[in-house]
Structure formats: C-alpha cells, structure tokens
C-alpha cells in the first residue's frame, strides 16, 4: 500500500508539472498582447513597453513560467485584467457554484445508474432490461442544454417550483442557492447516468459469467449476496474510472448548462475570459480544470487500491 501510494503521489506531481507547462506554453504562443488589451488600441508605444516590463512580458519563456509558478505556489496568484482582482479569488468564488453542481450531478448519476444497471443486468434481454436500455439511449441522444430547457419549462415555468435561472449566493440564501443548482445538476446527472448505466450493466453481465460467481452460487449464498457482495465489487472497478473522468470534467464547469441557467460558475468565467482576452484568468482557470481532472483521477487510483486488492502488488 505505501509504495503504491508514494508512486501515485510522484506521478501526480509530475503530471501537474507537465500540465502547467503545457497550459502555459499554449497561451504563451497565442496571439494577443495583454498589455495592448489593458491599455486599449490608443496606447502609446512607451506606455505599452512600460506595462510589458511591469507584467514581466519582456522576459524569456522560462523566466515567465517560473514567475507564474512561484505566484501560484505562494498563493498570490495572477490578477485578472478584466475584473481587477486576483484570479484565485475569482476561481474560489466560481467554484462555490461549480463544485456543488458537479458533486450533486454525480450523486444523481450514481443513484440513478447503479440500481438501473444492476437491475438491467439481472434481467438481461427481458422487458425491464430493454426499457432501461431505451432510457439510456434517450439520455445519450438528448443534448444537455435541451434537457436543461425542458426542465426549466416544466418545473419553473409550468409548476413554478424553481426560479428559471440565476444564483442568489450561498451567503445570501442557502435554500434558494440549493434550489438554483438542483435542476442543472439533475440535467447534468441524467446525461451522465446514461453512460454509467450502460457501463454498469455490461460490467455486471461480464462479471456474472465469471467462475467465482458460479462458486458463490454453488456455496448456497442468497442471490442478493451473490449480486451485491460478489459481483458488484468486481463490476464497479471499470465503472469507477469513468465516474472519475466525469467528475473531473464536471468540476471544470459546464459552459452550456451554466449559460442556460445563468449560473456564475467556472464554465461561464472561462467562456467570458476567452472572449475578453483576459489571459491570466484563462490560463489559471484552464490550469485549475486540468488539475481537477488529474487530482480526481489520483483519488480514483487510491480508491482502486481499496476495492481491488490486486492493485497494490503492481
């Protein structure tokens, strides 16, 4: 367990470093001069040059990279060109929306997909299984934004249970904020549940054919024990990987859903920042998104070691 853990930690650090270099160099070669954007097109060449040296834009790639890294690590962070505040603060405030949505969406996805996938696998090719597969087909085909709009039309416009969009803020109105993220999280969760249901089903079907399931039945175990203790643990191993990817992706923000519901999340932040060429924001948010994916995968790797004892030896 310990060597596995250390190995995974080292991999995590190396990956984060690699990601930061990639993000930095992509935005380094991107056209568009931050100094020009800050001062506008009427700026004099002298003031431009002054600002450039102030921002460190006249230094070499590596010097700028390490300066950026140092800023990140010492948690001063870069400043947004547009909002005139540290990018860190921006990210944290937006994460207060995106984080809960992502987690809630995964909760919806898991509580929908696991029971349905198991149920379908246990009734392969029978009507229950066919209906579940039909539902997942629907979930795969429907675009997120459309489902989001449908939910607004039904629950907000027709029934009036929810506001049709916007976000009051956790400090202002906790219950209202929760209600504001419920529908978008549900829309995101249902779409992800479709893939997870199919995956759970096929993984269960594969595991149920294994010899050790026959052994479990030959012992006289109850079908419930066979399914939930002997089969599910094995079947979850591949499902967990995809759950991790989905969570990482959700933490990176859902640009479209956030726009449909007018939510001030990370997706909207980066979307607007790109439009306004607010490079420090784009760079740091993209780095954060990539890091979120990497870190979630790291956590999934540790979870593997917990459910699959064979992992520790590798």
């Amino acid at each position, binding site marked *: 367990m310990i060597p596995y853990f250390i190995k995974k930690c080292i991999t995590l650090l190396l990956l984060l470093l690699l990601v930061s270099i990639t993000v930095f160099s992509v935005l380094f070669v991107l056209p568009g001069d931050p100094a020009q954007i800050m001062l506008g097109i009427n700026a004099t060449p002298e003031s431009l040059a002054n600002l450039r040296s102030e921002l460190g834009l006249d230094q070499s790639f590596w010097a700028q990279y390490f300066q950026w890294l140092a800023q990140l690590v010492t948690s001063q962070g870069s400043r947004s060109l547009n909002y005139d505040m540290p990018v860190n603060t921006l990210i944290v405030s937006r994460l207060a929306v995106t984080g809960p949505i992502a987690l809630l969406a995964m909760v919806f996805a898991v509580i929908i997909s696991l029971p349905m996938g198991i149920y379908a696998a246990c009734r392969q090719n029978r009507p229950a299984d066919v209906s579940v597969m039909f539902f997942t087909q629907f979930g795969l085909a429907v675009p997120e934004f459309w489902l989001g709009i449908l939910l607004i039309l039904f629950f907000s416009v027709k029934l009036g249970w929810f506001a049709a969009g916007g976000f009051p803020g956790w400090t202002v109105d906790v219950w209202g904020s929760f209600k504001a993220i419920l529908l978008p999280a549900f829309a995101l969760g249902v779409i992800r549940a479709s893939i997870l249901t199919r995956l759970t089903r096929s993984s269960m079907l594969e595991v149920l054919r294994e*010899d050790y399931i*026959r052994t479990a*039945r*030959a*012992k006289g175990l*109850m079908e419930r024990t066979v399914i939930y*203790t002997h089969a599910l*643990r094995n079947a979850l191993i591949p499902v967990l990987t995809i759950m991790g990817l989905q969570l990482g992706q959700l933490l990176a923000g859902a640009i479209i859903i956030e726009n449909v519901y007018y939510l001030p999340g990370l997706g909207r932040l980066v979307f607007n920042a790109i439009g306004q060429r607010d490079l420090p924001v784009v760079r740091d948010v993209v780095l954060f998104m990539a890091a979120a994916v990497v870190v979630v995968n790291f956590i999934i790797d540790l979870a593997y070691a917990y459910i699959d004892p064979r992992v520790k030896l590798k």
Partner: protein
Amino acid sequence: MSPPLLDIQDLQVDFHTPEGIARAVDGVSLAVLKGETVGLVGESGCGKSVTSLAILGLIPSPPGKISAGRTLFEDRNLLAIGPQALRRLRGKEISMIFQEPMTSLNPVLPIGRQVAEPLMVHRNLPRSAAMEQAADYLERVKIPSARKRLNDYPHQLSGGMRQRVMIAMAMICGPKLLIADEPTTALDVTIQAQILSLMMALKEESRMSMLLITHDLGVVAQTADRVLVMYAGEVVEAAPVTDLFDHPFHPYTQGLLRSMPRLGGHDRGRRLKEIPGTVPPSTETLVGCKFADRCPDAFDRCRKEKPEPAGIDRDHWARCWLFEFPKKRGVHG
C-alpha cells in the same frame, strides 16, 4: 442394498444456441451410493460439467435448460424442489469444486471470508465464529500458517493453495456429496497428487460420497470405486473400476484406455494414440449410435438403430450392438 444417495434418471439438458438446440446431456442416468466415489470420464465437450452443474441447478439459463429427467437426492427430486430449497442444499449437503482455482475464487474478497461464508449462510453463525472455524478448516487442508493468511487474497496464493482453499470451502459444512469437476487438471503433476490424496483423506474421515469428473483415467484408477464413461452427452459404459480397466467393452472406452499414458510414466510425452475423428455436433439428431462414425467396429445396424444399455456382467454394462454380435469385433488394440 440401501437406496443410492444420488440417483439421476434420464437427465436431458439443452442449450438454445443460434445454430439450434444443442443437447449437451442426452438421457444420462447415474447413481452414487453412500460413501462411494464415482468417476465420470470422457473427452472434452462430452457433457461432464453440464451434468454436474445440472445436479445443483447451476446451468446458465438462458441458454441452458433441463428438459427432462429426475435427480433424486435422498428422497427429494432436486429438479422439483424449487430454487430456494435447492439453494439451501448447495454448499451444505452437496458441494462442488471446480477446475480452475485461478478464476473460481473471488479476487476481491479475502480467502478466510470466502471459506467462512457457507457457515454464515447455512448455520447462521456470526462472522467471528465462522472465521474461527474457517481458520481451523484451512489448517486441516494444510495451508501453512493458515491463521495468518485469513486476510490474504486469492492472488497471493499458488494454484495448489487456492485449490486447498476451494476444498475447505466446499467441505466446511460437512456435505454428504462432493462433486469435483476436474479438481486437479489445472495443477502441476506433483501438486495434483497432493490435492488428490488430501481429498481422499478428507473423504474417508467424513464418509462422504464423491462424484469425480475427469478426463484423466489415471486419477480414476487411483480413486474411484465405479466409473462411467460418457460420449457425446450419453453414458456409454459403466463398470466397477477394476472391471473397466481389465475388460473395457465399448470400443470408445477401449480407445480411451489406449490413449492413456502408462501409469509407470516412462512413455509420458510420447505422442498419445488418439481416437480418430471428432464428436458429432450436439445440434444434430443422429439415428443410431453416436460413436458409429469413429468406431473401428461399426456395422450397418450401428448407423440405423440406437443401442440400449446391455449388461455384460453384474454392475457392468455398455451401450453397444457388439453385445449381440461379439464376432463382429475386429482385431486391434
């Protein structure tokens, strides 16, 4: 004579495949007496495993289906008692050991837990008491420092050790019948001998009956009291073990014996004499004897009429027309 412990009558198992209905087991009758070891031999694919799985209701369904027959265990018909009653029997009165020790244990559960499970479900023992007994039984099957290995996982054990775990798991509730489906086939020769002698020792201690499935006639010779030879879903010959080796009657049995390496072992590795031809696909319905196409002694009647079991000796019978026309047997072997 007391009634047999297990009495299978005319068992028939079909698999519904895209190519049609495949009859994997075609009218098998088989009895196991109390304390007896019955060997079931035959080439790969002849229906040995399907027969044994059918006893415990473990045929994957779909595609499999038991389409006819009775399996009497003591006085209960296992095909009629219903899934819950059958489940309560499994692992308690009838246990099973499988061929592949690599894949037959659950990779994500500790072995102690897996051995303890039958006690928890059949005896309602709390986990701690069941684990205690599991440790004792693992010591009985000679797992070194068994108590320390309760929390080991199957991948941490060698093939032979895993098969010992399987044996402990099957025997822990003291079953009346043990069905062992090729328990040693996947193991090294030396380990094979150890596992076999362990099984036989445990069997002697507990007066259990055993149905031993194998395609290794050497194993049968060492362990079984009686032998049944299967071919293409049917039992073609049944005899006490010495009779079968001394006077094999059915040409298929004779072929099997010829293909067996000498027990002394100096011609192991030499190419075995195989029976020419292949088993007919089980989706075909054949008139006559299923072995006729491969049989060196086949004559007209073999292809037209299906032979019924006929007695050769007390306890020794075969399904072959040569019984009525002994002169037709060619000179070979």
